[in-house]
């Protein structure tokens, strides 16, 4: 030990670096565990003060469909959690327009405020990221 930092003065090396993290969600909820697992990692990431974006493409758009009620299938309805993300300073939610259209959905069918992007804009946004986590 050359410096008596006590292990807390690490900002310049690690916690001070803000990276652009994107969570890319492509799976419908409930049929597989991907959507729930993604949400859990997103919540963990909130603790690290990074620049987090959530992208919903393909069947991933179904994750934020309004009106989910899971009593009948005996699983936890985790859709309200997406509305709580704002409280964790996770406010960048992007949904692909073409994915909505292929499923007969519109922005009005979604339970959170999102930015709807074209497929081309979504692709460009992916290129801007430092870290991509796929679910």
């Amino acid at each position, binding site marked *: 030990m050359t410096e008596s930092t006590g292990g807390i003065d690490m900002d310049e090396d690690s916690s001070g670096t803000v990276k652009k993290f994107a969570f890319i969600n492509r799976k*419908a909820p409930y*049929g597989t565990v991907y959507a729930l697992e993604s949400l859990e990692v997103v919540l963990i990431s909130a603790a690290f003060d990074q620049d987090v974006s959530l992208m919903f493409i393909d*069947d991933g758009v179904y994750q934020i469909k309004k009106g989910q009620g899971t009593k009948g299938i005996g699983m936890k309805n985790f859709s309200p959690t997406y509305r709580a993300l704002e409280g964790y300073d996770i406010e960048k939610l992007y949904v692909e327009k073409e994915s909505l259209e*292929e*499923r007969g959905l519109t922005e009005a069918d979604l339970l959170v405020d999102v930015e709807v992007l074209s497929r081309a804009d979504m692709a460009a946004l992916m290129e801007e990221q430092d870290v991509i986590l796929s679910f």
Partner: protein
Amino acid sequence: MLHIVNKSPLEKNALDSCLTHAQAGSTILLIEDGVYAVTKGNKVEPAMKKVMESCTVCALWPDLEARGMQDTVIDGVKQVDYNGFVDLVAENATVQSWL
């Protein structure tokens, strides 16, 4: 014969394969992520409407409700609960699950 599909039509080709193999008079039951196939505006809606001319198409209501898709089901699709699921299995001599 009872055909059961549990995969999303836009993620896997299980539904496509089912629709090309199902004979007239068959029953097709959609469960789990398969229920998205009978929701209005889905890309496969025309294919579902076509198969409904010769087959009975059913969807498991609790799975529609879980996904928030209960109010957007294509007209003519028979919605069944778990008891209805059991009845379909009992009524049909053979069951083919398109996993």
